[in-house]
């Protein structure tokens, strides 16, 4: 069992994917000699050469659009979008083209493009570098969206994304890039589209994903000191969402809290609340509650700590839920 950071785990996962699949190639801005602005692709150009680790022009639509062409030719492009807020120039290619190629061709064509996007805040950065736009993509059928919260998942999920016949967006929790964890490189990985119960409990369930998973676990630990038994689920996949695992948990606990950095309005938490209310209405002891960002453009670095759901805000909402 190797211990590595999430960034290193993705790096090793990419290395494994490039070794395993001769048609896989990386595309992105500054991913070559620099190794990406977060060094996630460090050393890969030196190992695999500039034709498989391609420094592209500074043009996100160009990256995704040419990746689609490469995929149609039989390649498996793995694209890096430098920051969450920079994905929007490629939004058209992702939603009107990439997502629809399989259905447009009546199943004759696939477009197995992987898009890596570092996302989320808490890094004290400037505008457009801290956003969580996952719901905007989850609303589009044809895309799959996954997000690891730990090094082991990071290592495997990127490789699983590469083998998927559908386009996959991998949202990488950038403020956790340096979070270390054990990676079992010889494991048989679980499906990336399944949620995982990280901690069992009986009084309430917290569903979180990506950067908020460690915060959710900390909240469960704190609640335990107050005598509450809280189950924590790492959602892992945002599209599709593993509602079965969440439902099973809520049927047991009767209470559900969903936490994400993205604004709650129109977000993934709302979707989970609606579906779980449909599936487990008679078992619910409290309204499904969301903790997330406000209906604001992402705030400035010096104010983001008040915007991001933290331990206290999750505990506050947990108290509300448990009080019913």
């Amino acid at each position, binding site marked *: 069992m190797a211990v590595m950071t999430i960034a290193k785990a993705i790096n090793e996962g990419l290395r494994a994917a490039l070794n395993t699949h001769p048609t896989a190639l990386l595309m992105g801005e500054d991913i070559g000699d620099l190794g990406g602005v977060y060094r996630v692709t460090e050393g890969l150009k030196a190992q695999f050469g500039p034709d498989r680790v391609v420094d592209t022009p500074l043009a996100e639509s160009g990256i995704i659009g040419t990746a689609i062409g490469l*995929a149609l030719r039989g390649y498996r492009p793995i694209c890096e979008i430098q920051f969450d807020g920079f994905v929007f120039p490629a939004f058209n290619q992702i939603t009107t083209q990439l997502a629809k190629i399989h259905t447009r061709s009546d*199943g004759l064509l696939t477009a197995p493009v992987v898009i890596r996007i570092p996302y989320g805040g808490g890094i004290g950065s400037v505008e457009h570098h801290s956003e969580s736009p996952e719901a905007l993509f989850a609303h589009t059928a044809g895309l799959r969206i996954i997000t690891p919260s730990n090094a082991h998942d990071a290592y495997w999920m990127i490789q699983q994304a590469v083998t998927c016949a559908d386009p996959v967006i991998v949202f990488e929790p950038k403020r956790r890039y340096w979070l270390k964890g054990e990676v079992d490189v010889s494991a048989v990985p679980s499906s990336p589209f399944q949620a995982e119960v990280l901690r069992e409990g009986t009084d309430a369930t917290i569903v979180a994903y990506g950067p908020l998973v460690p915060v959710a676990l900390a909240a469960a630990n704190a609640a335990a000191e107050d005598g509450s038994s809280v189950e924590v689920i790492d959602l892992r996949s945002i599209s599709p969402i593993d509602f079965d695992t969440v439902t099973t948990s809520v049927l047991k606990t009767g209470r559900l809290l969903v936490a994400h950095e993205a604004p709650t309005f129109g977000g993934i938490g709302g979707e989970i609340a609606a579906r779980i209310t449909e599936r487990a209405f008679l078992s619910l002891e409290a309204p499904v509650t969301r903790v997330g960002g406000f209906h604001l453009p992402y705030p400035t670095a010096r104010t983001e700590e008040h915007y991001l759901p933290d331990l206290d805000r999750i505990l506050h909402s947990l108290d509300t839920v448990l009080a019913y």
Partner: protein
Amino acid sequence: MATPRLPAAEFDAEEQLDAHHLPEFPRDPSGMVQMLTPEGELSGSDFRGYAAAEEELPALYRDMYLIRRFDQESTALQRQGELALWVPMRGQEAAQIGSARAMLAQDYAFPTYREHGVAVARGVAPADLLKLFRGVTNGGWNPKDSNFHLYTLVLAAQCLHAVGYAMGMQRDQLAEQSLPKAATMAYFGDGASSEGDVHEAMVFAASFNAPAVFFCQNNHWAISVPTEVQSRVPLAHRAHGYGFPGIRVDGNDVLAVQAVTRWALDRARNGGGPVLIEAFTYRMSAHTTADDPTKYRLAAEEEQWVSRDPLTRVEHRLRATGTGDDFFRQLEEESVQLAADLRASVLSMEAPGLEHRFATAYAEAHPLIQEELQAWRDYEAGFDVEGGAR
């Protein structure tokens, strides 16, 4: 052993900066390549070496004649309520047939939604083109059979696909030298030339020396907005800003279009990099059947272009060189049959139901799709139980 690598693009800044002096390829002094005048006279051209032989002209004429009849019948089908929409291409027959007949089997075309002539020349069944407009599919044919991609309705997106596909061809060629050299064709129009994706496609193609030919049909109107609003310079000139050749060709001259496209494809296949061809043509009909050109352009302009009709000049040439009435009569009979077959095919098209849409949204199994499909089936089954016919 070192991994073989793709050659870098050659770039000579001084040469590229001089937009009007491009010594490495032939160029007509008039600024627009033409080989067959509107009167049907052959004119000299530096591209003569790439032109079709005189005996190939009847086949090119046949292609153009049949696609015009196809276009006319499709318009009629829309007017009769059998198609949701039709996108006419009248006037652009030479640009489409000439460029398509320059491609080799291994080349691959990425169209907009108006490239009916290219499609049929590439081997797509005419009726398959109408499935999209009949509303039974958003595709209609297998692109792998014809190396002609599905129509793209969000214009300009396909230009990047063409460049990416060409980058794949480069890599295939590198891995397997015995593969036939190939190139892509990126079709777009004067309207879409303003889209950012065209710019990005040209940047990527130039930077990676991709074997992609940008084929812009400047048909003068982006629905109701004239080309002057899209560009202050001839569109072909834009290529020089990216560092590759741009050529304006008489888009109503099938010989010139084919010759210039052959030259460009040949150059791209052999590592010369991208070329922009601006086919100077005219959309003689409406943008779509939902459009009314009388609101934005003058009849006089339309009449002016009638005199430059791409079919008329070839007919003049054919008759002048001894092609008899029999050829034209047989072609008319063939076109009538094509129209009848097309109509019969359209009227018998069945839409494959919503189940098929559930089945193709994703390539791999998807729990939400399965859940919603089941819910929909249960809902539909309720009508059967209650005896309602659906």
